């Protein structure tokens, strides 16, 4: 029995024809755009992925106070750029910022800056932007007008080329937020009803670039000749297009379709750099520290002796190997990013090795000494003889965290501490942090420059998570003396003033082990050098790439 010959021919024709027509139509249009020739000493074009992961068609918005503007980097500028890595400040729209006590901040505003529509930029624009945040709390990303981290502002006034912010009390810890405020043009935004819902289609900024075109997908930005530091900008054109997962991004870096990528590409050395070592590189700047946080209100974590012992019993090198291909270094127990923040270390620790070595024998001895004795089955018990166990909650899908948790569990089990790892959805882990219903988690200690707000709030008993919010002190460490030191630190306006209080916090970290520092967590830049050189590197870490893109732009030059 056979189906007739003709039918079978039609079938194969149909299928074959379809395939053919698909191939034929697809061939056109994949040619890469020709790049323009650049003038001497200039870079014709750099291509980056889109900044926001959410764009559809013609819904473009440049309002820097919307959650996802098409670009948050190149159009509107901050007052001062503080390098996230070394905490060095580069004056931007403000030439200086001076504290008068902790409750008055004076900003000297740069003169000679022009908005992209030709109007002069003045101190009034700065005062306008800051005052607008009072009226619209949705814009107030630095908490200027409320009581998060310091007293709320009382008034913001422009006076000549200065802007004076007066606070109701000490507000020194708001500094980082205030200086990174994106300044809006008063002559445009004054007429806007609600700047949080305003769709900004024709942006007027002070930044180095202006919008040339946006077709719903490809954003083209052109260099401004009248930019206030135009001599430092060598890039004529920026194209931002597309959202890429790690494998797509690796391929696009390889073919030169993008010049930099700021997301995670597993093993960038092998997947990108080894394939083209002359033209590619990567810089993973430490942005913070991955820490192990036990629930200090629960056994066994309530015992500092236990926390100290296991801090020596975990192989951080192996975590780095398995979690992030050995790129990030084991982290200093001080909670500071070293060596970048070396000069902040208290004298007693200066030059000392504050990265705890992996020493299982020492850890075992310490556990023995603290009464966690090993039973006949090789498992340790609590000093009172009850069973000892650790239960790790780890975010499912955070591959690096899962790998690190596995190392922790293996090492602790080797020590005789019965440890198991439970992976659950990141939201559930968040929920556990809020309710305190967990035994141990991995989390992030932000390495930003406002140390009272980062290291400080991890140790501050007023920063326990609530049902609503995951405040940073997830482990619930509580010590009145530490709280005092944090309060003092947060009110101090200069590094010299801060140092003794910071010293106390470092001391707490090194002797109490409220959290155990594991490895540094990166801010990533993976880049190509055939169009532009001057990216931050380990040897020249002038910026932490991804977070300081504006600063990086002023360092980029054509390849020599």
């Amino acid at each position: 029995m056979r189906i007739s010959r003709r039918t079978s021919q039609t079938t194969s024709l149909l299928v074959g024809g379809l395939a053919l027509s698909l191939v034929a139509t697809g061939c056109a249009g994949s040619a890469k755009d020709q790049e323009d020739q650049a003038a001497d000493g200039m870079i014709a074009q750099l291509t980056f992925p889109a900044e926001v992961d959410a764009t559809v068609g013609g819904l473009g918005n440049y309002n820097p106070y919307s959650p996802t503007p098409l670009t948050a980097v190149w159009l509107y500028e901050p007052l001062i750029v503080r390098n996230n890595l070394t905490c060095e400040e580069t004056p931007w729209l403000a030439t200086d910022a001076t504290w008068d006590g902790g409750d008055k901040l004076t900003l000297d505003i740069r003169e000679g800056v022009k908005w992209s529509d030709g109007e002069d930029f003045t101190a009034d624009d700065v005062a306008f932007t800051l005052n607008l945040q009072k009226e619209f709390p949705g814009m107030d990303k630095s908490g200027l007008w409320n009581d998060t981290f310091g007293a709320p502002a009382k008034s913001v006034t422009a006076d000549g080329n200065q802007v004076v912010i007066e606070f109701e009390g000490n507000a020194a810890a708001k500094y980082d937020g205030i200086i990174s405020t994106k300044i809006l043009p008063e002559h445009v935004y004054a007429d806007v009803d609600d700047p949080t819902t305003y769709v900004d289609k024709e942006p007027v900024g002070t930044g180095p670039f202006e919008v040339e075109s946006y077709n719903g997908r490809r954003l083209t930005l052109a260099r401004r000749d009248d930019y206030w530091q135009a001599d430092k900008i060598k890039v004529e054109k920026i194209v931002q297009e597309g959202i890429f997962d790690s494998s797509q991004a690796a391929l696009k870096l390889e073919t030169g379709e993008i010049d930099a990528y700021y997301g995670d590409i597993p093993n960038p050395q092998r997947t990108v750099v080894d394939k083209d070592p002359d033209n590619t590189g990567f810089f993973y700047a430490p942005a913070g520290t991955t820490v192990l946080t036990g629930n200090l209100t629960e056994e066994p974590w309530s015992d500092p002796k236990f926390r100290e012992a296991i801090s020596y019993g975990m192989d951080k090198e192996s975590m780095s190997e398995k979690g992030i291909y050995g790129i990030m270094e084991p982290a200093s127990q001080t909670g500071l990013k070293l060596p970048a923040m070396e000069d902040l270390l208290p004298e007693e620790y200066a030059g000392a090795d504050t990265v705890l070595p992996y020493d299982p024998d020492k850890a075992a001895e310490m556990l023995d000494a603290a009464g966690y004795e090993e039973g006949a089955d090789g498992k340790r018990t609590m000093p009172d003889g009850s069973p000892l166990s650790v239960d790790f909650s780890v975010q499912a899908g955070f591959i690096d965290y899962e790998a690190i948790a596995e190392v922790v569990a293996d090492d602790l089990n080797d020590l005789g501490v019965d440890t198991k790892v439970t992976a659950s959805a990141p939201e559930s882990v968040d929920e556990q942090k809020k309710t305190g219903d967990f035994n141990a988690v991995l989390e992030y200690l932000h390495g930003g420059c406002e140390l009272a707000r980062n290291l400080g709030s991890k140790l501050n008993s007023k920063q326990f998570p609530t049902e609503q919010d995951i405040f940073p002190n997830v482990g619930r460490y509580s010590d009145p003396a530490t709280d005092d030191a944090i309060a003092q630190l947060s009110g101090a306006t200069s590094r010299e003033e801060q140092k003794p209080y910071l010293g106390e916090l470092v001391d707490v970290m090194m002797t109490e082990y409220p959290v155990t520092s594991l490895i540094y967590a990166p801010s990533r830049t993976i880049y190509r050098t055939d169009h532009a050189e001057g990216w931050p590197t380990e040897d020249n870490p002038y910026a932490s790439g991804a977070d300081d893109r504006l600063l990086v732009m002023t360092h980029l030059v054509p390849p020599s």
Partner: protein
Amino acid sequence: MRYFLRKLGFFVGTLWAVVTLNFLIPRIQPGDPAELMVRRLQGKDSQLDAAQVRAMRSMLGTPDGSLWSQYWDYLGDLLHGNFGVSYTYYPFKVSEVIGQAIWWTVGLVVVTQIISFAIGMVLGAYAAWRRNTKLDATITIGSTFVGTLQPFWIALVLVYVFGYSLGWFPTSGGYSASTPGWNAAFIEEVISYSTLPALTLLIVTPIGWILGMRNTMIMNLGEDYIRLAKAKGLSDRTVALRYAARNALLPSVTGFALALGGVLGGTILVETVFDYPGLGRLMGEAVQNKDYPLLQTLMLLTTTGVLVANLIADLLYGVLDPRARRAEG
């Protein structure tokens, strides 16, 4: 008539259940949209900045009132076609966002579904007619094998082979440099950019049709009327196509309607891999960001799509096959 009324009543009841579940499910899951937004801007494992979370909450607004009054507000908004403002695409309205994305998915999925259906029916019927031959084995084992592969993985292989090694097709996006509209440059780009996503779907989707069609067809081939038709001396072709295949097609019609209605589900990963600006990617983003307004509307759209398709198929079925009417009526 009773058959049709009954189906219509079933439709309305299911729709209400769907709308209600749609309201409830996102609300009983953990996770706070404002926190997720801040985290998305700062990095997945970042320490949440309290000031930023506070600002984001005040911007997005938090629902007030009891769950019950929220539910009534929600039903009222739905009736007025007011789907709210997306969190992910704030300050744009959900309807605007979906309005931009829907055509991409409709274009891609409807075309590939129709082609897949046709391929599936033809290959399935052919395999059944020539069952237990080498060709049948090739088709059946081949599709079972391909069916075990993840669409996601197939997409990545296509990206690598056709996108990078051969460089034939672009691998990301719906278009690039051209201006959207009815112009040759744009249309050309749309076709070339949708080739790889379409190919991925064309490899994956016919499988179910092929196997389904083959099985129903084989069952039908054992029926008495086929034997009768053969005994009458009708040509093989007539028996295969007009008797066996025609009847075997019937169940697939319902399946096809359902597949068209449920286009969204299967395209989330594929659209995400190709950064294709359609509803599937939107759905992925909405889930990730706990974008309730967007997520709810998309779910509503999908479920309504399936229900309407189902209703149409049911009604059509009643027309096509008198047995269905009599059996239930």
